[in-house]
């Protein structure tokens, strides 16, 4: 496919605007697909908006907060995450086959992606750009503690780290440890502490009072 874009565009920085090669290719695709009636630009914006906010990490955060406060729900989440997540009304594209893995003081879970479209968007929102990069993936497998350090997460040496390969068939949600001192917080307030990265395992939940 690379031979498709061997041609170069003349670059003239003196005046006018400039679009990157990728942006030009995207606009060309969008133009053709719109002209042929395959897509509607307004619908595209709605999709972007949906995935950025409405179907954002808040869905997964609610799952985590409920698991922290409701032992019966947590038991269901651990035994059948797909159904437990669907209970809260979150299902659909890419969220179909989920498994929850629980962090404890002995074990920290990280999810990496070996295929490319296996990220559970309905639960976690859009993937961070680094999530599927080859260096992150290979390093997470070879040196998970080093990757965690890069993300500012220091775990006790006694905490084991388990790396899960997300695939097209099985997608993972990390159930982070509930931050200390949050016993009195409501489920809503707890959900505000749950970051996307904490549900991938490359971060920890915010501490009480850090919620934005």
């Amino acid at each position: 496919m690379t031979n498709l874009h061997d041609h170069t565009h003349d670059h003239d920085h003196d005046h006018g605007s400039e679009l990157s090669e990728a942006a030009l290719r995207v606009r060309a695709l969008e133009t053709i697909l719109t002209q042929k009636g395959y897509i509607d630009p307004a619908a595209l914006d709605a999709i972007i908006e949906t995935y950025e906010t409405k179907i954002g990490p808040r869905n997964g955060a609610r799952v985590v907060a409920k698991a922290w406060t409701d032992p019966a729900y947590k038991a269901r989440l651990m035994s059948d995450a797909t159904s437990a997540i669907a209970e809260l009304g979150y299902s659909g594209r890419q969220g179909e086959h989920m498994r929850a893995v629980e962090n404890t003081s002995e074990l920290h879970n990280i999810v990496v992606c070996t295929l490319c479209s296996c990220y559970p968007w309905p639960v976690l929102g859009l993937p961070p750009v680094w999530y599927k990069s080859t260096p992150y993936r290979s390093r997470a497998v070879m040196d998970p503690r080093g990757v965690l350090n890069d993300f500012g997460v220091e775990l006790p040496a006694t905490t084991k780290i388990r790396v899960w390969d997300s695939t097209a068939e099985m997608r993972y949600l990390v159930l982070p440890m509930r931050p200390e001192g949050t016993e009195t917080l409501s489920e809503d307030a707890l959900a505000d502490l749950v970051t996307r990265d904490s549900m991938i395992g490359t971060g920890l939940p915010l501490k009480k009072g850090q919620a934005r």
Partner: protein
Amino acid sequence: MISDLLAVLPAIPRDDDGPVFKEPWEAQAFAMVVALHSKGLFTWGEWVETLAHTIKSADDANDTYYHHWLNALEQIVIAKKVTSPENLHALEDAWDRAARATPHGQPIELTNDPAFVVTKA
């Protein structure tokens, strides 16, 4: 350690307010695939396969995830005979001319292409 990561991933969104997409075109490319799938142009399995193949056969190790995504999108759209590489090239050139003819800061519209009449898809 971190400089290794940053060297290959210059825009790691380290905090939760960081952008999910590095550039708007990435979000556009993402949304187009979702829309085309909803429209039934391809199944999600076909998309996964195309994207996985694109990543596996990539000859540029520096390609980012969304560059693979874009390569795969072009591939599947052409495979489904929605358009041809020639049409895509012609439109890329048209957009390029349109951008250059658009004063900095103004919205770039395809109609700004001085040769607009020849850019039918």
